[in-house]
């Protein structure tokens, strides 16, 4: 029996800051201090504290340490574990306005954890810890007491919308596939997270992989599919490894495989790795990739719920969407609807990045304002600089300015101003950044990621880049600015898939609010030529 547990956050962010060597040092020094039998070091997912170096928490004391380096380890052991004195210089204390939740990291503002409830609390490599936190209970409930159509009805009641960025009603998609009579149907988890600034799916996969397995199995039961694929981008090595281990454990526990919970329902899962292509986040491109082809999007209709992977009815759901399912089944639609706004129920996971004091992953009820995210949870902008703009939803996301600070972040409110929640990435940009440079950065990205299938996107992104380069080189004219706008508008209407249609969104947004910045460059050129 261990008297103490040290949970060390082992996610991609902390590893980039040296978490592995700190863990090794902990194990080494615990052995030297003859404490290896009493103190257990457990790797966990993200603890919700970012950019503060290596993070660990000691239980049962629930003391959080940040910025831990290898040379601090012996002090933590001799002071905290042997003498029972907190090492104050490393302790992470409450941020202003934080609510204390037992066993959870101090968190600022109104954060609620549904999707991330286990992340940083359980050992993701141990299925028993997931089970101890109500894991697989929803699946048991569904398979023993609910018909497939009851599962769909519950999710429909909850109002859950797809968290991949399109916010399509999840249950509606399921109904399309459930209606199909094909014997073979597939469930795909879209874990090809590639939208710049977004890492929510990564931290869900790394922190709570069994929630995805349970969510997919429930989806399979609802629509009548017995096989699922988790498509994870090749760059997410750690997510792939954790998920592989979780699948094996679930099989060993009889939670994947034949006749689950003694029912007639069988379900199994396989991981498919991406090989580096942003476009594969688009669901039909993703399907092409699983089929071993170039990840180019398909013509729609038919949509995947009627004709998807290998021509069979297929449900493609995002990681965050699937992580919501077990809890909706367990706690009910009414509970889920009590969170968020009327039209956007539930919580949303956001990643706060860019010029912000407290970057990272947060889960908040839908409808929180931009100001609350940036200034309360994010603790404002570094260096006393001002807020210039924010981009919501990744690089294809809409542009928000100071006039939108009090706008509730919900699907319906953002739609009204021509923006969207997208992937939930919130890029904060301070007032010292050059907007034209930023737009050029966006366009370089699209130009690189365009798959080349349709002319408007392939050529359009290239011409936009040329026009922007002309402007920044001081050779542009006011007509070029108008041309950028015209081309962007045409792409939005005519491109083949979501990439080319969404690429103009941030360009037009920046032109709408910061047109003078563009024209300033053009005017200088005009006068220089004259």
């Amino acid at each position: 029996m261990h008297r103490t547990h040290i949970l060390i956050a082992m996610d991609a962010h902390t590893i980039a800051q040296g978490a592995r060597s700190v863990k090794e040092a902990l194990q080494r020094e615990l052995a030297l201090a003859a404490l290896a039998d009493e103190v257990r070091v457990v790797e966990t997912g993200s603890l919700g504290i970012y950019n503060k170096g290596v993070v660990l928490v000691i239980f049962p004391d629930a003391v959080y340490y940040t910025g831990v380096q290898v040379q601090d380890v012996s002090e933590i052991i001799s002071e905290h574990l042997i003498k029972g004195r907190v090492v104050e210089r490393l302790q992470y204390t409450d941020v202003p306005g934080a609510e204390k939740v037992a066993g959870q990291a101090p968190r600022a503002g109104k954060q609620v954890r549904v999707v991330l409830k286990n992340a940083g609390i359980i050992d993701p490599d141990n299925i028993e810890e997931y089970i101890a936190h109500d894991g697989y209970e929803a699946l048991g409930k569904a398979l023993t007491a609910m018909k497939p159509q009851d599962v769909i009805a519950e999710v429909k009641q909850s109002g859950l919308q797809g968290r991949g960025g399109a916010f399509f009603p999840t249950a509606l998609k399921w109904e399309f596939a459930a209606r199909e009579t094909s014997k073979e149907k597939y469930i795909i988890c879209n874990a090809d997270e590639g939208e710049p600034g977004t890492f929510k799916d990564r931290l869900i996969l790394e922190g709570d992989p069994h929630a995805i397995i349970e969510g997919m199995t429930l989806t399979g039961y609802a629509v009548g599919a017995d096989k699922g694929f988790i498509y994870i981008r090749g760059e997410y090595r750690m997510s792939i490894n954790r998920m592989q281990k979780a699948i094996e454990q679930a099989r060993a526990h009889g939670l994947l495989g034949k006749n689950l919970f003694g029912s007639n329902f069988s379900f199994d899962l396989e991981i498919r790795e991406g090989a580096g292509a942003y476009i594969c986040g688009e669901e039909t491109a993703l399907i092409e990739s699983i089929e071993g082809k170039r990840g180019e999007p398909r013509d729609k209709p038919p949509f995947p719920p009627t004709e998807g992977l290998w021509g069979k009815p297929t449900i493609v759901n995002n990681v965050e969407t699937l992580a919501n399912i077990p809890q909706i089944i367990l706690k009910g639609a009414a509970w889920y609807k009590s969170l968020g706004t009327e039209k956007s129920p539930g919580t949303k996971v956001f990643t706060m990045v860019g010029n912000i004091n407290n970057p990272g992953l947060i889960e908040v009820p839908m409808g929180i304002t931009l100001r609350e995210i940036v200034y309360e949870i994010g603790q404002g902008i570094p260096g006393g600089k001002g807020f210039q703009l924010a981009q919501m939803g990744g690089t294809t996301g809409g542009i928000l300015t100071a006039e939108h600070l009090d706008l509730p972040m919900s699907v319906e409110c953002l739609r009204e101003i021509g923006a969207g929640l997208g992937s939930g990435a919130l890029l904060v940009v301070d007032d010292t950044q050059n907007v034209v440079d930023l737009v050029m950065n966006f366009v370089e990205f699209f130009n690189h990621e365009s798959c080349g299938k349709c002319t408007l996107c392939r050529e359009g992104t290239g011409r936009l880049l040329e026009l922007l380069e002309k402007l920044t080189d001081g050779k542009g004219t006011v007509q070029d600015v108008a041309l950028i706008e015209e081309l962007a508008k045409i792409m939005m209407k005519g491109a083949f898939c979501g990439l080319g249609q969404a690429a103009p969104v941030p360009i037009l947004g920046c032109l709408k609010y910061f047109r003078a910045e563009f024209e300033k460059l053009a005017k200088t050129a005009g006068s220089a030529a004259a």
Partner: protein
Amino acid sequence: MQDLKKVDEIVKNYSMTKTPLIYILKDVQKEYGFLSETLLTRVAKMTNIPLSEIYGVATFYSLFTTEAKGKYIVRCCNNAPCHVKGSKAVLDKIKEYLGLEMNETTPDGLFTLEFTSCLGLCAVAPVMMINDEVYGNLTPEKAVSILKDYKMKGLANA
């Protein structure tokens, strides 16, 4: 003549997997370093997939390469979240230190410089990845000191 036995073994390993081409190419690249025409031709023969289609796949995905690369592949992120945290200055310094432009390899075969797609490490931006290791909160100086370590390691093992 290059020994192609490993290619055959890799293809056979996936006989139970439906449409495994991407896995096959990953494993072949891992084994041989890069996807040469000879290797792709062999994959085509073993899988009965046209070579043109295999070439199309091998050149579509950024994690595949049809050319030899350096021992250490330095992948820098320049997406918007890294951009606003100063990735350009970091990249300029790396280019200067290695004497490379993007997608070039040093004459000693030690380093190749590339862009990476977003690695989802934006809370510690700007970031770069060297082979499988990731480095965050970079400054131009920090990036150079990391590269110096690799250079020493690489030259010592040469």
